[in-house]
């Protein structure tokens, strides 16, 4: 929202107006705004000359795109096979109870996003949880609870 006309423009100017850049453009917009507001989506589609319906289809097909505002902190729980065998699923359930939010969503106070990811390729650290790009190896409920507490304090 705080992002201005110029910034969206500069993102779009990186891409020649061809449909093939749709995904990359959306990724860059999301990198900037943390999500893809409808207005930005429209701007991207118009710039690349793709119908809004296609932009929407792409944004909902690929799981990395967010169409609602993101929270302040991101939590990603790995559900790769190794993590699954070592109780990754139980961690998510625990966090869902803890944050009162279902996976793939953002807490009411916009403080945390809770997402799951299919294997971060850090299987040796299973079960692994990534909080704001910090890996939490061999994560456990207690460790995570502490991490969350610190973040909310800050």
């Amino acid at each position, binding site marked *: *929202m705080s992002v201005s*006309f110029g910034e*969206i423009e500069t993102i779009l100017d990186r891409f020649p107006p061809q449909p093939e850049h749709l995904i990359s453009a959306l990724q860059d917009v999301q990198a900037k705004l943390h999500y893809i507001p409808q207005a930005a989506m429209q*701007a991207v589609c118009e710039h690349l000359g793709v119908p809004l319906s296609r932009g929407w289809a792409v944004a909902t097909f690929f799981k990395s795109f967010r169409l609602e*505002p993101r929270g302040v902190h991101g939590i990603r729980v790995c559900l790769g096979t190794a993590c699954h065998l070592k109780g990754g699923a139980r961690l998510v359930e625990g966090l869902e109870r803890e944050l009162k939010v279902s996976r793939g969503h953002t807490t009411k106070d916009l403080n945390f996003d809770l997402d799951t990811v299919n294997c971060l390729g850090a299987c040796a650290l299973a079960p692994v949880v990534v909080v704001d790009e910090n890996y939490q190896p061999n994560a456990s409920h207690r460790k995570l609870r502490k991490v969350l507490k610190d973040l909310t304090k800050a």
Partner: protein
Amino acid sequence: MKNEAKIGVFLCECGGKISSRIDLPAVRELLQFEPWAHLEISPYPCTAPGLEAMRAQVQEKGLDRILVGGCSPRAMKKKFAAALAPVGIEAYQVEMVNLKDHVAAVHDGAPKELARKAAALLAGGLAGLRLLEPYQPVSVPFQGPVLITGGGISGFAAARELARKGMESLLFSPAQNLDQVLDQLPRTFPGSQVFSGELTELLKEVFASPLVKVLPDQPVEYVVGHVGDYRIGLRQPDGTETEVKGSALILALDREFVPGDYGYIGGGERVCDLLELEERLAQGEIEPGKVVFWVNSAAHGKAAQEFTAVAAWRDSLVLARNHPQTKPTVLYPANITLPLTGADLAEARQCGVGFQSYAPEVHPVVQSGYLTYFSPQDHLEHELQWDNLVVSMVPGEPAARTQELLRWLPVYSENGGRLRKKQLKLKPEQVADETIFLTGSASELRDLNEVLSQGKKAARGVLQLREKAQRGALVSPVVVTIDQDLCQGCGLCEEICPCGGVEHVKPGAGPVPRHADIHLCSGGGTCAATCPYEAVKMLNNTAQQLEARIKGVLSRMQENETLGLICGWGGLGAADLAGVKGLSYPRGVYLIPVNCLGSIDPAIFSMAFVNGANSLLLAGCTPTASCHYIYGVDHCWYRVNIMKKLLSLAGLERRRISMGYLDVNQPEAFVRMVESHLDAMASLAPIKRDEKIQTKLWAIHATLHRPRVRWVLGTSLRRPAEKEFPGEQVNAVDADETMLDVLREEFLASRILRAVGDQPLSPPQIARSMDEAVKNISPFLTDMAKEGRLTIKGWEGGYPVYAVGKA
């Protein structure tokens, strides 16, 4: 395409779906004397094998028109056109008759019986195709600068984009320099200081560009012309009038925000609105103490509230950064959604900006120094302490200037003041490229960002036009022509056209022949059906073609059957869907689709009756709301009523012609409509076609060709439901009495002319032939003689003997 038609007919078995219900060989028999050059029954004309065979026939027999008896053209026509293009057949040379959904799927009955109906519909198609004329799209020249008017900020974004792509533009703006623009910006986009930096860049570039000429926006006298050649007349301060020429129009119109009514709020001068606050911010004179932004004025809708909430958020950020002591808080209603991300919130928190939502059910109360609100979180009343209270601005009405401008353009202001472009819901191939661009917050409350990119987008649209024109690809899809000799310049067509498809003329230009704006024209055809002098003609679905098609079908119908004219959207959609869903209805109705009912000339109705129709059923979209040509169906409605009046004048039942409305998604309703109409007709005896009746029907037909009748009709096409009418238009019901008188006179006149048509007659003889009392007709005779429509051939027993006059 040569003049004598070579039509190829391809009947689809549809893998048994059609052939099992309709005896296709029998259809072939029934059509043997029709004018086709090739007729073939194919299992699937639409698949690769079928299309290959079709192409082969076109080349072998030199076919120049194709008639497919299969399913719905709405789905399949494009494929046939595409497949036949390589052998030189264009889309308009392909006609389809929907045997599957209008016959096979919906009627039970012996295949031979259904074959008869199928043959009738096909015969109609053939007759229509025969009159097909070659059609050449016209390419439009496109040069000169772009005219950017309206004074909205998006105009600058557009101008920059155009300049960057080397295209000139004339930008009409109340602000003549950078500072003026920035000063005026808060009125239209409160809370936009954050952007002023890059906006300045944009403006600098525009004012510096040699390709952009920024002119003061003088009042608009007129806008005439068409894409590639627009002309705007401007009233100069000294009263003189200057004209500027341009290739395209961009209307940059923003909506001003005005102070809301906050008189009821206490607090005196410590209460201000966003605009005042921003002025103070600009001067840097911010009183110390807590600032509370209160997003109020729910009356103006959520969009406005969200808009001001964001504005407040931005201003509070500016405040918090430059004047930390103000500790701003934004109090917003809980029922609006703030388009803010966690990152935004984090940022705001850092700057120490407070966010608080209030439950809108309980209106916050302002006391000196405190603002009481009801919190949706804990259901408690809380108090916000404030030293300066800032309240919302509210969106104002479009300026008089704007209204003036819009008179000339296919743009209207909705209730609530939002500007809307006349958007006809049509398929892309029916509308040419957008040539008039409406940008800015006047149409939709938008963030400055969006408005600016709108401007840029508009510029891109123009550039595309230019690029197309350079390729010679800037052409118009559907074309009406106005016969310059017949046209009297009455302007009816201009008034009733839904898409601005008839060019305006300068004020005071008088009754000059009109020109169609072939680019804006989208083929609604109500102009052609209206023109008193029948000067307007649609290409490639002419009244003549429809007439021929109807005759073709009628000639094969039985007395108890009815002719159905259905619009290509609601009516046809519902009828097709009835077939898809396998609903069943009596086969006594013969459907002929037209693009819009509004395009049917009233004389078509009478023609149908003259040629043996016993009843007509019309089905169109539900009026106004869903008509794809906005008023087309309404126009048809009144024409139908004229026909009813004439029928009763001729002593026939009014209900022989009836009109209904359908949504594309209402197949069941369509079935009920057909059943009930046929029931009603069953109770009527067929019209007995004796001399007298035929004469009257002829008279009706003649009446409907009378310019006088058509004029009155053309001025009273509007539904009572409507409030305001353009130009000469009047409410149909108000005009009803006049209309009836005119019809009576002209009907009688037509009968008289018919009577004396063969040999001169004296009043008693005329009266006898019309079995009317002499006194009823003699005044007319004298009048008509005066007008010269009758001449006196001589005298006989003291009576003048009348013959048809020259006039």
